[in-house]
């Protein structure tokens, strides 16, 4: 029975993850269109039914599946085929540690809405995100082209430098929160600050939030930081890929957006916490109460988590369509000379405030 529950959880979570990824590609096209006063992809139709282009991701997927899967003759075949799967796998399993909601009670059984409640959940996600670098390095090197090699070296350098800022900025959060277990972090954020403000990470560590946002944006390798891909000068680590293998890299990109959104939500915006909602309903700080049955409370929690994640996906797409790309030296300067010192200052400041 336990195994069955875990299997169901895995299937549901992966379905959620992949569907959100698919529709993020659609959302990216639509949102960029709305920002630029256009309409965006709206032609994909089934039997003349368009629904503002909601079938577009499936049309894209079908196109990608039927494209020629070309392996360049000068590439290292095995590694060339392996690289997209490495990239995809390490991002796809990070979702296992993300809490979608509190416990769900059905028939006397308590089900945690989280696949794997490990006590190092935060470190697990960071570690798996870092392992994604291997996909980049392998793909760039095994393609046997010097342009992909340049792309992968840029990517590795960028990810490693921003990994430091990412980790250091999270130390401030870890100091404030009682545990590395993500479910405990979220539970902790259910308390109230000064009696009315939810004790979310953003109110406890606003400075960390900004540093983490920048570092996480660099981790996703999208436009302000898209030097590894370099779409305009075609020095991308996946320049030699085509068809579904290229599609896997593309999906990895979008999955990283979702994972970063999940992390931002979980660490800084209270995960599945709805403001002033406890396990039995709302308790407003001005004295009102609105009690709700258990099922509806869990539904509200999952809904709140989803809305927060979607908001951050929206924000990241907006950032991607707003800013031009950094020059390479500016990128390195920002990582090593701005974000890392700031996060160190943040750690010291947090320590001082906590000891007072």
């Amino acid at each position, binding site marked *: 029975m336990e195994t069955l529950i875990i299997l169901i959880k895995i299937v549901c979570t992966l379905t959620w993850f992949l569907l959100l990824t698919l529709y993020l590609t659609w959302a990216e096209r639509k*949102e960029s*269109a*709305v*920002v*630029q*006063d*256009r*309409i965006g992809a709206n032609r994909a139709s089934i039997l003349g039914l368009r629904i503002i282009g909601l079938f577009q991701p499936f049309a894209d997927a079908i196109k990608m599946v039927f494209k020629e899967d070309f392996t360049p003759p000068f590439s290292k075949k095995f590694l060339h085929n392996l690289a997209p799967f490495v990239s995809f796998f390490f991002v796809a399993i990070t979702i296992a540690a993300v809490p979608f909601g509190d416990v769900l009670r059905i028939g006397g059984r308590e089900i945690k809405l989280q696949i794997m409640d490990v006590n190092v959940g935060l470190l697990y996600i960071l570690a798996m995100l870092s392992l994604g670098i291997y996909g980049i390095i392998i793909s760039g090197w095994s393609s046997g082209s010097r342009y992909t090699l340049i792309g992968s070296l840029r990517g590795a350098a960028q990810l490693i430098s921003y990994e430091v800022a990412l980790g250091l900025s999270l130390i401030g959060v870890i100091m404030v929160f009682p545990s590395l277990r993500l479910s405990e972090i979220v539970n902790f954020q259910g308390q109230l600050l000064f009696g009315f403000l939810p004790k979310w990470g953003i109110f406890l560590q606003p400075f960390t939030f900004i540093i983490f946002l920048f570092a996480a944006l660099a981790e996703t390798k999208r436009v302000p930081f898209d030097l590894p891909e370099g779409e305009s000068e075609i020095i991308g680590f996946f320049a030699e890929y085509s068809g579904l293998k290229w599609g896997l890299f593309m999906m990895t990109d979008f999955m990283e957006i979702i994972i970063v959104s999940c992390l931002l939500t979980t660490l800084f915006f209270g995960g599945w916490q709805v403001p002033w909602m406890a396990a039995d309903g709302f308790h407003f700080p001005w004295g009102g109460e609105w009690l709700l049955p258990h099922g509806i409370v869990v539904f509200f929690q999952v809904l709140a988590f989803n809305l927060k994640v979607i908001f951050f996906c929206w924000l990241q797409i*907006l*950032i991607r*369509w*707003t*800013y031009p790309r950094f020059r390479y030296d500016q990128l390195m300067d920002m990582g090593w000379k*701005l974000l890392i010192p700031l996060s160190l200052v943040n750690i010291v400041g947090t320590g001082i405030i906590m000891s007072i």
Partner: protein
Amino acid sequence: MLKALEYFFELIRGIVITSRHFFVNMFFHILKLVGIKTKRKGAITTQYPEERKEIASRHRSLHRLTKREDGKPRCVACMLCMTVCPSECIYIEAAEDADPEIQKYPSTFVIDIARCCFCGFCVEACPEDAIRMDTAELEFGSRYREELVYDLDRLLR
């Protein structure tokens, strides 16, 4: 450090501009979805095959040869259009007409649309107002080059 702070505020200004575009456009999109008619649209896009912009009266579209009252081509095969054509896409063979007023008429008049650059010189050169570019037809693309060679039958209307 101060410079970095300045850049940070500029970053925020940039994202305020794009998000303003997003929300204003979304507002008008939603109004349209609900069914409220507004003067302003959410996007400046013209949905081409369904919506078409009005073609200006001087727009140069597909050529046509004008007719006389009895249905014969107004063209007198003076070869002016053939001479002036910069892409040399017009080919005319003249023949003698029974009417002494007209004297010549084109037995073949071929325009290779694939070569035509739509400069409109032929229309300006024509002394008889026999060739015009006012059909307002813009979609005559084809998969085969032979289909793009328009002869007298297809031009005369």
